[in-house]
């Protein structure tokens, strides 16, 4: 008699043996076994039967036990009718390995929007990646293309389930749509090109889809395509150091993964090209290259990584008449014939195992398809030069994602290419490509276009400079173009002095390279804008004069810059005149035009400063309506305009009436740009002012605290806006009372930082010291106040200070010297010398006039 364990072991051996046998041989085995031990044979037969039924049954989980019990979903909380935040779940429209998808409605103050919400299974999400995703979602949210279903929101439910909200699309998967309409191959190619256009747009913004497949490409009833899930595979794509196979098991549709994705290699545009090749294959031949449905994950991985895809014609069977007819052919043979040749070549090139051997860009792929449609032969082989460039791109993972490291790599590599090119002038086109690439990279990092990347962009820009400089002597034209772009971005992220200096260098290079008047003038205007922003008004004016001499005076760009300059110099009437002209001359431009938009916002701002808040508000409203017409209701740019509008709104309608709108803008800014973005910081300042004016001083102070935190995080502790925001908070806290320690710490911090970086921050140190002195005076510390006011640094700066700051200084000084006892017949010894200096200063400045500049908010 066998023990239970022996019996199991014996069963195991027999089972193992049976696995390798065909059904007939298996029966023979069972028969032999039955002769020896009938009950054991019965048990073996049952086990084999179990095994086979387990193999056949489709996707239930291992043992039927595990996932059902352990991976129970957050089922109770997610059902139609459930409301959370601004969303209301309407209908469950999908369920998959990744989670569940609902159609939902989002209600805004004046719109209702249909959205799709994807709830992601929590165990599939790596917390760290999810956090990083929150900074990248602004980039995705700004991915504005009619062919891309936009990311609207990404967050976590109160229960902790991450979700992403996307634009809801009514449509059918591209393969089904094409089959249902019996589209011929040419029509399918035309449809596919629309997909390419959308993907190319994303790639230009450094976003890779990562999971392109037929079910992610919908076609609407009017024949327009929409790509779903753009970029969201990324935060969900890799869990720490989990192997690629694991990743594949969990997230990716194996059939849409590129070989290098399975191998854990870099995710680049080449992955999308591969997936597009799969999609095109399926769209044309009606099948994927491999019969994935009947393969194990291991076999799928092997096929994708090792097995060359069979020719499309080979995947069409003799019995596939229906398939051929759905493509407008009468015979299978005709379809096979049509699939050979250039189309086959294109598809195979997309599906190469090595990323470097595929098309390098979507544009190239599109070009070849265009050739097929126009019945021109495609280029059999790209030039060797282009091939090497593609290799470079793949090697450096260009456009794989937006990150500092990545952009830095691009910059350094571009500079390296440019250096190598010195001797090979005919390779200049390659450099031009590099320039284009770089510009696109910057466009994606430019926070006025997409926010949330401020810090990253700054880090990149600062790191980019040295490698850029190496091209100044050798290739001035390239330098001028790159430096101009770089300066533009620096200006946008608030690095004004750096931008001014770089724009000047760009201009010098342009002169060396012999740029024409228009391009030189544009650089002059750019430099002027940077100088204005940095406070060098005289320099700015000189540049604008020179640009005017080159014939650019009548361009909206020049008028805009001149208007800004006048505005900063408090030349209100002239500012308005220039800005009005800029607005007039950009009237025909589309809402997406930066200059047109900026001109309107600047004019509205100037109107507001000229106490014409009614008109300012009207212009803001008009700009908002104009932009809304071309943008989604919650586009980031609309939030920015609403943010600038708050000030005018407050003046026209009053603080109380503005608070609710300001709260909404803060909420939107947090959602779109992130809580620690420039936008969120600025919006909070507006909200804070409204709250203070409305008498909500406690909450106002709190909002200013949050604003300061955001500034610190967005632009750093030493930036002028951070310092000014800190000064404002210190004053608010002083007025509020009860926060002396916090207020004093702020005063000390801004003075210390301001002194260290006085030139860069244009810190009004005299003004700040005067206010800190008043703070000290009120707290009976007249000696400290006096010493502070008479610091050598303060006295050095005094003569160049704005007159209003000098008045504030003198008022503080008089009060301090009298409170310190200077008026007494014999002042205390330790302050006697201060008293003398103070008396001299007061006497000599008896004629100082009160100034006008009091607006200290950045």
């Amino acid at each position, binding site marked *: 008699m066998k023990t*239970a*364990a*022996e*019996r*199991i*072991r014996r*069963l*195991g051996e027999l*089972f*193992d043996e049976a*696995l390798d046998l065909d059904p007939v041989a298996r029966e023979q085995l069972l028969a032999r076994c039955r002769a020896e031990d009938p009950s054991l044979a019965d*048990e073996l037969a*049952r*086990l*084999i039967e*179990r*095994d086979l*039924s*387990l*193999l056949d*049954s*489709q*996707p*239930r*989980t*291992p*043992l*039927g*036990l*595990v*996932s*059902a*019990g*352990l*991976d*129970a*979903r*957050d*089922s*109770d909380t997610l059902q139609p009718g459930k409301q959370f935040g601004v969303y209301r779940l309407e209908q469950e429209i999908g369920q998959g390995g990744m989670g569940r998808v609902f159609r939902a409605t989002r209600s805004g103050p004046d719109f209702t929007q249909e959205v799709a919400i994807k709830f992601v299974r*929590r*165990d599939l999400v*790596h*917390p*760290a990646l999810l956090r990083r995703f929150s900074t990248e979602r602004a980039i995705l949210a700004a991915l504005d293309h009619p062919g891309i279903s936009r990311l609207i929101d990404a967050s976590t439910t109160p*229960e*902790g389930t991450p979700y992403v909200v996307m634009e809801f699309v009514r449509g059918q998967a591209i393969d089904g749509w094409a089959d249902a309409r019996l589209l011929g191959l040419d029509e399918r190619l035309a449809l596919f090109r629309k997909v390419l256009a959308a993907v190319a747009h994303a790639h230009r913004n450094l976003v890779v889809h990562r999971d392109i497949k037929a079910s992610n490409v919908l076609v609407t009833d009017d024949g327009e395509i929409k790509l779903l899930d753009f970029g969201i595979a990324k935060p969900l794509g890799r*869990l*720490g*150091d*989990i*192997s690629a*196979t*694991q990743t594949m*098991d969990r997230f990716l549709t194996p059939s849409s993964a590129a070989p290098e994705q399975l191998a854990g290699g870099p995710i680049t545009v080449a992955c999308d090209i591969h997936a597009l090749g799969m999609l095109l294959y399926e769209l044309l031949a009606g099948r994927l290259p491999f019969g994935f449905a009947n393969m*194990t*994950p*291991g076999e799928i991985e092997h096929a994708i990584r090792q097995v060359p895809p069979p020719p499309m014609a080979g995947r069409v069977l003799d019995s596939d008449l229906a398939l051929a007819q759905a493509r407008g052919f009468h015979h299978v043979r005709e379809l096979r014939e049509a699939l050979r040749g250039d189309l086959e070549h294109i598809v195979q090139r997309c599906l190469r195992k090595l990323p470097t051997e595929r098309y390098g860009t979507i544009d190239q792929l599109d070009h070849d398809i265009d050739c097929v449609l126009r019945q021109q032969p495609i280029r059999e082989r790209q030039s060797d030069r282009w091939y090497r460039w593609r290799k470079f791109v793949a090697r450096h993972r260009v456009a794989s994602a937006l990150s500092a490291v990545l952009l830095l790599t691009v910059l350094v590599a571009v500079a390296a290419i440019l250096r190598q090119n010195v001797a090979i002038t005919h390779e200049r086109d390659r450099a031009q490509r590099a320039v284009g690439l770089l510009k696109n990279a910057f466009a994606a990092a430019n926070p006025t276009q997409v926010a949330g990347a401020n810090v990253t962009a700054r880090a990149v820009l600062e790191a980019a400079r040295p490698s850029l400089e190496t091209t100044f002597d050798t290739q001035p034209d390239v330098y001028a173009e790159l430096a101009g772009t770089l300066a533009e971005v620096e200006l946008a992220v608030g690095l004004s002095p750096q931008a001014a200096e770089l724009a000047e260098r760009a201009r010098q290079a342009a002169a060396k390279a012999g740029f024409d008047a228009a391009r030189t003038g544009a650089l002059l205007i750019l430099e002027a804008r940077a100088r204005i922003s940095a406070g060098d008004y005289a320099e700015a004016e000189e540049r604008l004069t020179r640009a005017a001499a080159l014939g650019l005076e009548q361009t909206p760009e020049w008028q805009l810059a001149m208007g800004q300059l006048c505005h900063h110099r408090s030349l209100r009437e002239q500012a308005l005149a220039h800005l009005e002209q800029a607005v007039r001359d950009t009237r025909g431009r589309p809402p997406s035009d930066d200059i047109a938009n900026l001109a309107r916002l600047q004019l509205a701002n100037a109107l507001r400063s000229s106490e014409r808040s009614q008109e300012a508000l009207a212009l803001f409203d008009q700009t908002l309506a104009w932009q809304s017409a071309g943008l989604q209701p919650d586009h980031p740019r609309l939030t920015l305009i609403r943010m600038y509008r708050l000030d005018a709104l407050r003046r026209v309608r009053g603080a109380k009436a503005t608070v609710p709108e300001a709260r909404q803008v803060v909420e939107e800014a947090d959602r779109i740009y992130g809580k620690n973005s420039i936008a969120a910081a600025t919006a909070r300042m507006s909200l804070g002012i409204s709250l203070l004016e409305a008498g909500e001083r406690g909450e106002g102070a709190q909002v200013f605290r949050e604003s300061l935190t955001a500034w610190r995080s967005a632009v750093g502790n030493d930036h002028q806006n951070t310092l000014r925001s800190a000064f404002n908070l210190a004053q608010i806290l002083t007025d509020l009372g009860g926060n002396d320690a916090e207020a004093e710490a702020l005063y000390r911090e801004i003075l210390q930082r301001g002194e260290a970086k006085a030139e860069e921050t244009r810190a009004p140190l005299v003004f700040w010291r005067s206010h800190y002195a008043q703070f000290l005076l009120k707290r009976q510390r007249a000696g400290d106040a006096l010493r502070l006011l008479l610091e050598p640094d303060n006295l050095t700066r005094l003569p160049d200070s704005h007159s209003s700051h000098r008045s504030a200084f003198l008022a503080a000084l008089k009060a301090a010297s009298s409170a310190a006892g200077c008026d007494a017949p014999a002042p205390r010894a330790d302050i006697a010398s201060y008293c003398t200096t103070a008396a001299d200063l007061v006497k000599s400045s008896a004629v100082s006039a009160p100034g006008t500049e009091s607006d200290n908010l950045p």
Partner: protein
Amino acid sequence: MSSITELLDRWKRGDRSVEDALATDIYPVLRELARAQVRRHGNALTLRATELANEAYERLHVQQGVNWQNRAHFHAIAATLMRRVVVDYLRERQAEKRGGDQLFIALDDMNQRETPAQGDHVDWLAVDQALTEFAQAAPDAARVVELRLFSGLTKEEIAEVCGSSRATVGRQWRFARAWLAERLDVVPGDEDGG
């Protein structure tokens, strides 16, 4: 936590005597995470082994800097412990409530359905018991089952951890699965066709 790193080094070099000590260090972490997870779900019994394992990994590796050789390394150790956490937890629950087994629907009932409905539960105690019995006859195959059920490792990773091949693991899994299913009399499905 440096002691964990040290123990791991020894374990890695083949010293199996440190397993108990390791368990003593890691078990509380897993248990705490399991309790937190149950609390998060309003005390509904939704232990998710994979999620737990990942959370534990994150906590020990990322937060405390324990130097796992790799993720598989961690999961290989944690799988047994995870099984204990699940079983201990359920025993506790059952002791708390008389008739605590009503928390689970009988595995037989699952036969009736096409796919497991949300909220279905598994009689893990029965699974544990069957697995223990099975392990006496086929320890290697039982280990494969344990790793499949209580870790997030793939078949390839399991093969690596067990020092075996993918094919062998696949065979062991098929046998163990059939035997357990027979033993527990369920008709489960399979995710990947084995």
